[in-house]
C-alpha cells in the first residue's frame, strides 16, 4: 500500500501549493513581471522562445493526459488522490506555458497551428510511447514512464532553463520555479509508489525497462534536434541577444557555463544529467537502466 502517502492529503496540497509558493502569483509569476521587451520585439529571439515554449506545452499536455488517465488505473485510493492533485498541477503547467505563448505574441486562434509547426516530432513520439501504456491501464509502466522518465527529464530541463533565465527573464524563471516545486512531489510519488510495486511484481521489470529505453531514445533525439540540429539558430539567437545586450553573462549549471557553452556542449550536459538521474532513480527502485540506440 501507499503508506508514504499517509501524510499527504488534498489539504496538504492546498497548503503547499496554492496557499504556499503559488500564493499571490498570476499564471505562476509575480503579477508585475512581463516578458522582456527585447524578447517580444526581436523576431529571432521571439521565434526561438516560442519554439522552446511549444516543447513545454507538448510535454505538459502529455503529462496531463497521463496523470489523469492513471487516476482510474491506480490500485489504491491514496494513489488516486495524489494523481488527482498531479492532474491539476499538470493542467496548470499546460495553462501557464500556453499563456507564455500568448505573451510572446501568438494569437489564440493560431495556438494549435503554432504547436503543430514547432513541436519536435521526437517529443511527440516520446509522448505516444507513454500514453499507449496509460490507455492500456498499465499502472506500473504508466507511473514509471510519467513520474520517473518524463518528470525526471522535465526536472532537469526546467532547472536548466531556470538557470539561463534567472537574470535575463525573471518572469519565465519564476514560472519555472513553481513547476520545479511541483515536479519534486511528482518524482517523489513515482519513486516511492513504484519502489514497492516493483518488488511485488518483479515479472514486470523487462517490459517496463523496454519502455524506458524507447522513451529515452526519443528524448535523446529531441535533445539532438534542439541543440546540434538547431545549432545555427541557437548561435544566431545568441549573437542577436549579445548585440542587444540581452541575456546573462554567466549561467552556471552542473559545472557548465550555459551562457558560453556551444550547442553541442549544452546538449551533452543536459543528456548526461538526465541519464545520470535516470540510472540512479531506476536503480533505487530495482530497475536497470537500458541504454537506447544512439540517435542519428
Amino acid at each position, binding site marked *: 500500500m501507499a503508506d508514504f502517502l499517509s501524510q499527504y492529503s488534498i489539504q496538504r496540497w492546498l*497548503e503547499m501549493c496554492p496557499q504556499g509558493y503559488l500564493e499571490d502569483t498570476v499564471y505562476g509569476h509575480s503579477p508585475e513581471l512581463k516578458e522582456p521587451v527585447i524578447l517580444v520585439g526581436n523576431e529571432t529571439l521571439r521565434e526561438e522562445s516560442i519554439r522552446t515554449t511549444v516543447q513545454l506545452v507538448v510535454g505538459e499536455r502529455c503529462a496531463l493526459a497521463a496523470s489523469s488517465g492513471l487516476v482510474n488505473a491506480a490500485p489504491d485510493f491514496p494513489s488516486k488522490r495524489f494523481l488527482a492533485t498531479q492532474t491539476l498541477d499538470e493542467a496548470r503547467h499546460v495553462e501557464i506555458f500556453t499563456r507564455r505563448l500568448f505573451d510572446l505574441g501568438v494569437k489564440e486562434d493560431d495556438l494549435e497551428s503554432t504547436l503543430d509547426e514547432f513541436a519536435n516530432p521526437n517529443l511527440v513520439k516520446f509522448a505516444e510511447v507513454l500514453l499507449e501504456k496509460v490507455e492500456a491501464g498499465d499502472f506500473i509502466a504508466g507511473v514509471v514512464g510519467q513520474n520517473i522518465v518524463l518528470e525526471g527529464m522535465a526536472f532537469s530541463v526546467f532547472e536548466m532553463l531556470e538557470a539561463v533565465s534567472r537574470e535575463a527573464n525573471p518572469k519565465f524563471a519564476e514560472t519555472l520555479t513553481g513547476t520545479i516545486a511541483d515536479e519534486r512531489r511528482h*518524482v*517523489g*510519488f513515482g519513486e516511492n509508489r513504484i519502489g514497492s510495486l516493483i518488488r511485488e511484481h518483479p515479472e514486470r521489470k523487462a517490459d517496463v525497462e523496454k519502455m524506458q529505453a524507447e522513451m529515452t531514445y526519443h528524448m535523446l533525439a529531441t535533445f539532438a534536434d534542439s541543440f546540434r540540429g538547431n545549432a545555427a539558430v541557437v548561435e544566431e539567437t545568441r549573437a542577436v541577444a549579445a548585440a542587444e545586450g540581452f541575456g546573462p553573462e554567466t549561467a552556471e549549471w552542473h*559545472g557548465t557555463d550555459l551562457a558560453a557553452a556551444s550547442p553541442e556542449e549544452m546538449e551533452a550536459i543536459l543528456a548526461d544529467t538526465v541519464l545520470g538521474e535516470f540510472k540512479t532513480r531506476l536503480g533505487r527502485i530495482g530497475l536497470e537502466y537500458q541504454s537506447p540506440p544512439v540517435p542519428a
Partner: protein
Amino acid sequence: MSTVEQPDRETELAELVEQHRARRAEGSERRHYDLDDRGFNEVPKKWRKFYRHWLGAGDTLAPNEIICPVCKVVIRSVKEIRAGDRLYCMPCMSRLLVVEADDGTLVPEVVY
C-alpha cells in the same frame, strides 16, 4: 637508559577514530541547532525551517543537514545527523534512513 615507545601518527589517528565511534555508539550528546527560516516556501509555514534549497557550487552542508536524493532539497535537523537517523522529506514525501558509507560519509537511503 630505558626508552618508551612512542605511538606513530597512524596509530594515534586510528585510536582517535575509534574513540569517536565509541562515543557515538554510546549515544554521546549531540549538538543541537536552532533552525531559522531560509525562505523555502514549498511546504506549509510550520515546517519551512526544516528545509532549504541547495545553492550549487560553493554551498556546503552543516552537520545537521543532508540532501534528499529524490528531490535534491536540503533537509535540516535540529540535531547533528548520525547513521541510523530516520528523516522525512516533505517536499517529495520520501522517508529516508541515514547510513554510513564505506568512506565514513553519511548518506540517505530511501525507504520504500
